[in-house]
Every structure is written in C-alpha cells, then in structure tokens.
C-alpha cells in the first residue's frame, strides 16, 4: 500500500469508528428516554383536551380513542384527528381538529370540542402565525375572546348569524384582527356542520 492510500484507509476507519460510537451513544440515550418522552407527549395532549372538556365527563382514554378523518369541511387535503370522549361506552363529546386556511398569515389550527347534543364545549387555537399583539388574541392565554363559542350550536345562532359582527353576525371580532376572527368563526361553524352530518359514524 502506498502511504497516501494507507493514510486514507486509517482516516476512513477512524471516522467510521467515531460515527458508530456517536450513533451508539445517541441510540442509548434514546432508548433510555423514549418511554418518558412518549408519556410527556400523551400528557401534553391530554392537558390540551382537558382544557376543553372536564375530565369528569368521560372515563375513556382520549389518547387512544381517536380516529383520523379527511373532510373538506375540516381541512383541505389533510387528515384531521378526532378525539372521542365516552362515559360508560356512551358518547359524550368529540374534540375535532381542524384547520382554518384563511387566517391573516396562513393556517390556523384549532381544536373544537362539540358535545354529543351538538353544542360547543369550547374552542382552542393550537397553532397559528397571526401577528403577535393583534391576531394572537385568539390564544386562550392572551385574551378571553376564544370563549365566546362556548354553548353555541348550529341553530344558536342561526346560519346567517354565524359571522363576525362586522359581517352582520353575532360574534364580536377582535379589534384590528377581523380577518383572523372571521377565519376562526368560519372554521368553527364548519366543524359544527361536519359534526351534524357525521355524528353517528364518528362514534363507531
């Protein structure tokens, strides 16, 4: 072997050993923590859901009682998750994920909790890119606005009033963030329509 190729060989072996050792350390850490990370993720989801419905109204595991649905009323070409809350195997509520595509700067992801009787238990924003200080008032920890949906349903108010006040509807818009408010109202209304049409199949 010439000295150049010998050098290259030693370097390659060294780099190889190093990469394997590095990967082994990462794999070991992953193995030791993956259970804990999975628990964290589950608890995180559960906390989000229990912000919408009280833990006392259901007795099933929300993390596993889920279905994936694909419907233009919820999102364009994307699978959305529906969490199903039951007590004694009777359906009590569904928490439906949806995307409002027409926010001021892109998609707004929402969780909409609908009681089995069709009334809204609550709405929360999970992801958005709205302007900080204006449109982000849709977040529950920034303002109370998102609570205006609680108790509403498809007939309360009627279809022509499921709009922000500026458009002649019954929901106050957030000051300086009408587009954002409009998007959330519309998406919530669509979820109610979806729920009415699919209620029975959702819980099967």
């Amino acid at each position, binding site marked *: 072997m010439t000295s150049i190729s010998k*050098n290259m060989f*030693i*370097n390659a072996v*060294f*780099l190889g050993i*190093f*990469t394997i050792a*590095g990967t082994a*350390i*990462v794999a070991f*850490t*992953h193995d030791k*923590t993956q259970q*804990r*990370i999975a628990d*964290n*993720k589950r608890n*995180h989801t559960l906390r989000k859901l229990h912000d919408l419905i009280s833990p006392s109204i259901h007795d099933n595991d929300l993390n596993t009682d889920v279905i994936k649905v694909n419907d233009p009323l919820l999102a364009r070409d994307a699978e959305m998750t529906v969490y199903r809350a039951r007590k004694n195997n009777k359906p009590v509520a569904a928490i439906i994920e949806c995307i409002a595509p027409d926010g001021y700067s892109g998609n707004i992801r929402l969780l909409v909790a609908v009681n089995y009787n069709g009334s809204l238990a609550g709405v929360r924003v999970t992801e958005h890119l709205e*302007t*900080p*200080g*204006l449109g982000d008032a849709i977040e529950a920890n920034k303002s109370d606005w998102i609570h205006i949906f609680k108790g509403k349903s498809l007939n309360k108010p009627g279809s022509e009033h499921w709009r922000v006040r500026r458009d002649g509807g019954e929901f106050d818009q957030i000051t300086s963030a009408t587009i954002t408010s409009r998007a959330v109202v519309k998406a919530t209304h669509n979820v109610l329509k979806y729920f009415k049409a699919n209620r029975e199949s959702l819980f099967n």
Partner: protein
Amino acid sequence: MSLYKNIINEGLWKNNPATVQLLGLCPLLAVSSKVVNALGLGLATLLVLVVSNATVSLIRNFVRNEIRIPVFVVVIAVAVTIIQILMQAFFYDLYLLMSLYVALITTNCVIIARAEAFASKNNVLDSVLDGFFMGLGFTVVLVILGAFRELIGFGTLFQQMDLLFGEGAQWLQITVFENYDGFLLTILPPGAFIGLGLLIALKNVIDNHLKQTVNNDLPQTAT
C-alpha cells in the same frame, strides 16, 4: 492563574461570542423574545459547548488533521442530539417553545469555532473552562436581550419561568407595567436586531471609556 483569568475575560467580555464574534445570531435573535426562552437556549448551548470542547480536547491527539473537521461535526451533532432528547424527556414544555432552535445549536458557529480554535490545541480542563465561559458569555447576552425584549414588549419579566424550573417558579414573574398594551416591534425580529445593536454599542462605549481612562492615567503616572 492568569491563563484562567484570560479564558474568563475572553468568554465574558473581550471575545464574547454574541457581541464581539457575532456568532450564533440565528438562535440568538429568534429565541430572545422572553427571558425563559433565552435562558433555556443559553444553557443548552453552554452544555453543548462544554461537552464538545471536552470531547474534542480528549481526542485531539488521535484525530488526524485531515479529518478533524468531520470528527468535530460528529461530536457536536451527537452532543446536540442528546441534549435535545434530554430536553424532550425532562423539559417538554420548554422544548415545545424552542424545538427548532435546539436542533439549530448544531449550526451555531461558535461551537465549531471553539473546537477548532481552542479545544483542539489545549488540555481538557482549559477546554472545559473555555467552553463554559464562552457559553456563559453567550447566555448572559441572550438573557439581557431577552429581558429587554420582554420588558418593553410585554411589560413583564420572567414570565413562564415554571417551564424551566417547575411549577414552583411561577412567582418569579414580575409585572413591571400594569395594564401594559405591549410594544409589538420589540417582540418581532427587528426588535432583536435593534436590541443586539444597542448592546454592542453599549459594550463599545464602555470599552472606549476604559481605554480613555487608561490613556488619561498614563501621563499622570509618568509625571
């Protein structure tokens, strides 16, 4: 002893990664909107710097020159990945706030710069100290910038510290201005640039002032 003093001075002031070397600006500017984010990312970076400097220094005599950069990259990538996994396991909520930027620590130039410029030429203890004080210098600037932006932007200090220190730390939040409407500009990216610019300017003013006092003192001691 003067070597240690020098390492400390370099990291915290003279060669501060954020205000002098201007390295790692991407996470610095993106994550400094609140003290808690800033402190979280600063500590993570500090930890990566210490681990990578220590490892690089340990292996500096075995690694051949031609492959030292790829080896450093592996070391840094491993350190960052492990810290990312540990954050998911123990500081999940904080991790959600800054997940993207944790991975970006890998690309923070200050880490490979210290590996190459310092750790590959010095012993383990010195390298660990260098990593620690460079990281501390970075963290301090991040936290000052975070405090500035949080104070002006939200009117508070130390919001959500419970993400880092557990539920018991919520009392740390100080509402400096009651019923404050917030000042949007400082929360948005331009606020980070303006804040960092002011910090660098302040440092230069202090440096100039120090230089002048030294110059003024010299003739006096001569006469």
